[in-house]
């Protein structure tokens, strides 16, 4: 239970970070935080029903649930790809406007577009 509360706090922090931080890089950090929180949530909760890793060598029983782990492999890779793309947008905007502050970028870009 305490782990779930901690993960809930992590999600709060991540979501709050995405919305309120003005630096683009910090928004991307927060997106990573919230992605990681969800991954930990799935794997943690799936591990409660067993005590062995799901590698079926001879004599292994009572394994943890392997399905959340497989799903989260996909989710981690997708999260990394989104972060990479977001960072490339941040770099592009930095080259155009010279700043990472979203408000400043918006002001400059609306003057040009």
């Amino acid at each position, binding site marked *: 239970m305490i782990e779930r509360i901690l993960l809930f706090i992590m999600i709060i922090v991540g979501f709050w970070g995405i919305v309120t931080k003005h630096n683009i890089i910090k928004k991307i950090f927060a997106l990573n935080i919230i992605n990681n929180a*969800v991954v930990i949530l799935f794997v943690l909760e799936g591990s409660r029903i067993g005590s062995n890793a799901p590698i079926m060598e001879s004599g292994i029983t009572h394994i943890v649930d392997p399905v959340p782990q497989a799903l989260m492999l996909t989710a981690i890779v997708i999260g990394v790809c989104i972060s990479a793309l*977001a960072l490339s947008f*941040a770099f592009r905007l930095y080259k155009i406007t010279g700043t990472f502050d979203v408000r400043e970028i918006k002001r400059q870009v609306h003057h040009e577009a």
Partner: protein
Amino acid sequence: MKPEDLLFAPVVLPLIGAALVIAAKAFLSRKVVKIVEYIGAFLGLGLPLMFFAIIYPTISNGVVIYGIIGGWHESVGITYQFDGLAWLVNILTYSVCAAAWIYSLDAGPEGPSFTSVFLILTAALSATIITSDIFNLFVCLEIVGISSYILVASTDKPGASLAAFNYLIISASAMVFFLIGVYGLYRITGTLSYQGITETLQTLPDHGGTSAIISVALIIASTIIRVAIMPFSGWLPDAHALAPHAVSAVLSGVLIKVPLFALSRVLSFIPSGASAGQLLGYAGALTAVLAVILALCQNDAKRLLAYHSISQIGYVVCAWGTAIHVGVASSQGEALMTAAFLHAFYHALFKGLLFLSVGTTVDRAKNRDVYTLRGAASILRASGERIPVTLITFLIGALAITAIPPFNGYISKNAISYALDGTILYYLLFVAGVGTVASFIKLSRIYWQKPNEMISTKPQPVPITAHISQLGLALICLISGVIATPIYANTKNLLTGEYPQYVTNWYSPATLMKTAVIVMLGAGLYLLTTTKIISRLLKKLRELPSHFESLFIYFSIGTAMLVGWMLWFK
């Protein structure tokens, strides 16, 4: 080989095309890469249309092809379901994507990277509607998302990168909540397929209770961000206005509709899904009105079209939501669902047409402001268009969206209004129709009169591919309006399994009278907006600051309202 074996052709063929283009780009010289691009596009956008023709007889007999990818056991494999809805949405996807790709050959971004990402987007859109597994829906929506962020940013305009970034952040955060919803559902039911979830939830007391409702609400809210009804639509005007023209056509035409129809299957998990449909219906109607008011204020031609996309998708969501609320099996529900799909399909066609025609025009005239651009018709003639093809196709698109007979917009809008007759939604959509007429009169003014400044250099000639794609879409708009009754009948059969019992009279005196009233009121509204007071008010509305945080606050409040509504009206 039965047709069912080729079921994944619409997903695999574009992927093979994309893989060939990527391999050619790495190995071969530029000229050969261009040839491989054409081969890849034909494989990926042309061959699937043949597949749809082959499989149509099976589907129209009511056969639902259902299976598990790889033939594994049901509890661990990924299930898929190909029924009439999947067939129709795929036709929508492929027709618009093919036209947009042909347009992009000369006018838009071109090159192997654009073609490969475009083909991957098409494959993912196809997979979104065929899949019957909630985590696979997540993966497909992510592929759609990531390819659309790249396509939006594939231009040199600085605003496009910021628009793509905003779209990325809101979409990626929404998908995190989608995953939390999947967590909730998997915890309660232990399975990920739609069928398994529905059956397991039925065996539980209270259909899974609060947790099931919250999980389904999170999944709905995350998907509705992509559908962009208000208040979730903050990202759409920038992204669609600043993207290249071919990409805007695909975004407005296809990307805001496919997640909606994929969501139809999710809403049947729990009985509260019906009340969610009711709330979405109201939200859709309000969106239709509010977005058209905002569209009236805009001065940039493509932003005006983008706000109109929001308004028209409001029509579709209104009909779709109400259909789910009254039950898809009832007669009103069937009529509404058919009307919703028809309007989605026709909107994809005429909105794509409008984006392509207006795009050609503003590219020649080098000005996108509807208040200052005049005389585009003569500019187009100066650029070598002897027959004013672009002007004609724009007019066809404008007549279609304002619901003038005999074009297809008339058929679909009246189908929706007829099925919603008597409710407050009917009046809201009426008001939205008036606003649509007014703003299209405003937009069409860019073509008349003489140009404001003399164009010093001869504008570039309009490429033949632009003409082909625009004419193709315009022709389909005209034909689908004229042969409306068989199309309506077959669509209803594909969606619900039975043909309509009686033939609707599309040209009844009452409907024609209503159309005439809407046009007159629309013209009056337009004249009203040219007065000083109203135009100052519109300017104030246009310049309202839009904050980045507001996207998320609306998402938060909207999700909470959805959960509250679903819990209240269990």
